[in-house]
């Protein structure tokens, strides 16, 4: 059992939890994730580590309430416990000592982006980020990014904050204005990462993405999370979750992610009814 030390509501559907998990806090690095099970009969769900504190022996997760398990998780409060949290899983991000890097975080994707950008800034890299959301409420962690980035650009679908439109509009504008980036790190919905890669490919900017396929064990024993990268089968849980975005078969990822669409629906109704 793992104790929840604090909980914060970031917006209508996104919440943050700091959880006591000594094994994970001791060794985890940016880019890695955990698998958790909310209660005894729960399913195993992967969540990227959004922050960690080695001294307090805690990890922070930020999750969006999208289905059965995240809803159950959201019903827990500080002081409660969750059944299982395993990790750190996956390969740490390969962060290079570039001159300038652009991070792009779509919605809750800003959470896994944060530890990578924070580490880069600690390494002395100049970092800019673009954060996107449906409305201004869906843009998260803006203040935390402002502490470590030179420029923080915002894009919202309805224009309630920053640019009205998509993160990719801002990306194109920055490149056309002559901003030079050695690498782009994009994390968010698959459609967003795909769209970002289409642009950066054109401009030959290396781009790293973090994939979030369906997972069960997260340790490399089932292959449920397999993705095609550069024509080869990779397991996102052990070979990733970070990959070269220009080599990822995004169409396949999106198709595989929809595999249990109907079943997810049944489960969600079960919880509410």
């Amino acid at each position, binding site marked *: 059992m793992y104790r929840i030390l604090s909980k914060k509501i970031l917006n209508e559907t996104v919440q943050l939890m700091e959880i006591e998990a000594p094994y*994970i806090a001791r060794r985890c690095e940016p880019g890695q994730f955990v698998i958790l099970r909310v209660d005894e*009969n729960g*399913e195993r769900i992967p969540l990227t580590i959004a922050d960690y504190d080695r001294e307090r022996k805690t990890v922070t997760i930020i999750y969006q309430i999208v289905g059965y398990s995240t809803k159950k998780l959201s019903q827990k409060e500080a002081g409660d416990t969750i059944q299982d949290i395993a990790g750190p899983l996956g390969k740490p991000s390969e962060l290079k000592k570039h001159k300038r890097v652009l991070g792009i975080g779509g919605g809750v994707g800003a959470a896994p982006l944060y530890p990578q950008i924070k580490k880069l800034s600690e390494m002395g890299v100049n970092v800019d980020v673009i954060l996107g959301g449906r409305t201004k409420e869906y843009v998260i962690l803006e203040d935390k990014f402002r502490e470590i980035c030179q420029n923080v650009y915002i894009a919202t679908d309805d224009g309630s904050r920053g640019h009205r439109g998509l993160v990719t509009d801002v990306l194109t504008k920055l490149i056309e204005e002559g901003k030079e980036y050695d690498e782009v790190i994009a994390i968010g919905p698959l459609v967003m990462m795909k769209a970002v890669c289409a642009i950066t490919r054109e401009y030959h900017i290396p781009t790293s993405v973090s994939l979030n396929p369906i997972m*069960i064990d997260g340790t*490399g024993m089932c*292959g449920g999370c397999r993705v095609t990268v550069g024509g080869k089968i990779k397991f996102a849980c052990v070979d990733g979750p970070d990959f070269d975005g220009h080599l990822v078969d995004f169409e396949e990822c999106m198709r595989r992610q929809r595999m249990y669409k109907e079943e997810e629906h049944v489960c969600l109704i079960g919880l509410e009814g």
Partner: protein
Amino acid sequence: MPNMSLKKVPMPEQDSKIRTKNFSEVALGYTEEQAVEEALRCLQCKHKPCVKGCPVNVPIPEFIKEIAAGEFKKAYEIIVRENRLPAICGRVCPQESQCEGNCVRGIKGEPVGIGRLERFAADYYMKNVKNDVKEVEKNGKRVAVVGAGPAGLTCAGELAKMGYEVTIFEALHTPGGVLMYGIPEFRLPKALVEREIENIRKLGVKIETNVLVGRSITIDELFEEGYQAVFIGSGAGLPKFMGIEGENLNGVYAANEFLTRSNLMKAYDFPNSPTPIKVGKNVAVIGGGNVAMDAARTAKRLGAENVYIVYRRSEEEMPARLEEIHHAKEEGIQMKLLTNPVRILGKEGWVTGMECIEMELGEPDASGRRRPVPKAGSEFILPVETVIIAIGQTPNPLIRQTTEGLDTHSWGGIIVKEETMETSKENVYAGGDVVTGAATVILAMGAGKKAAKAIHERLNK
């Protein structure tokens, strides 16, 4: 007066029509009367060939004698001197190629049902005897065990009996390894596995779940934490794929994923259990081992109408246990033998069929088995919506990638000295599937036991 019947006392089983609708155990076990009757078939030979066939050397005639005398509790106590998990072994060991394969009664007629009797004694004890384990005096030495499968559990249990402080580190949320995620409920009830593991905990063994050695902690760090020896029993859990077209279509599973969803996550009870599983009307399972049989029989129970085993050799070469092949056939699983998949076909991203080619047996290959050769022009399409790949597993690379000085084979298995299970790294031992590649539960237990003995000798030098 021995019972000279040529046949084993039959074991009651669930009817095949009823059992394909549920996940309850198929084989129901002997009654006390049936057990005594079967025990009386044992001739109590002096040279005990059966014991030599058992990888953990259970004193077979000794315990059977007690069953014949109605001393069921004594029978159990004799077994557990050598085997910590008898309720499991009695159910899943391939006895035909081990103890029972050597039984004298098998020369003319059927061998003594040793597995069934072992199972009976274990079940009887669990049901009727309050189990209190004597506290063992601790010797102050600490050993870490990586993986809570049959090899790790056995090694830990043996060491605890000798007074060691043992901690098992398990990556999943539940200990048991393949006993929990791989072998289905209808062959090995999970409540029973939990009770056997509870018995090992009672010996003082600590089990830390959710710790993935190689990521959460490394082998070297275990020594820094004060462990004086490490046993690696992390198994062979990395699934093989075939590398054919269409393998990433929706509806294609590795058997490990399919079985983990169903067994460990109880997807068969969806939506009461939130983990989903998808099974079409027509299912192809590729492979001929126990894992393939388990996956096929699980698919049937999840409602598939036609389940095919697609295997490239003939039935004679199938590595699965005879009993499992027999049960699968009884349950209506269709065998497509001498058949190999060529590619998986799909529409809008979902599996619609599998193109196969017929095979014939050619010259023997390196393994001594006749090599299957494709018959030109014999391609045909098997219409299926689900494909489950069960062509084998290899060890997970994580431990070898994160442990310096640990020698491994090119296929990933850890290299050990056969007599002691010692690896190339000092005070690190390994056993089970991580050494042999996917094998059997009992061989893993035998290796765990041998390593425990070697660790004890080493730490007392």
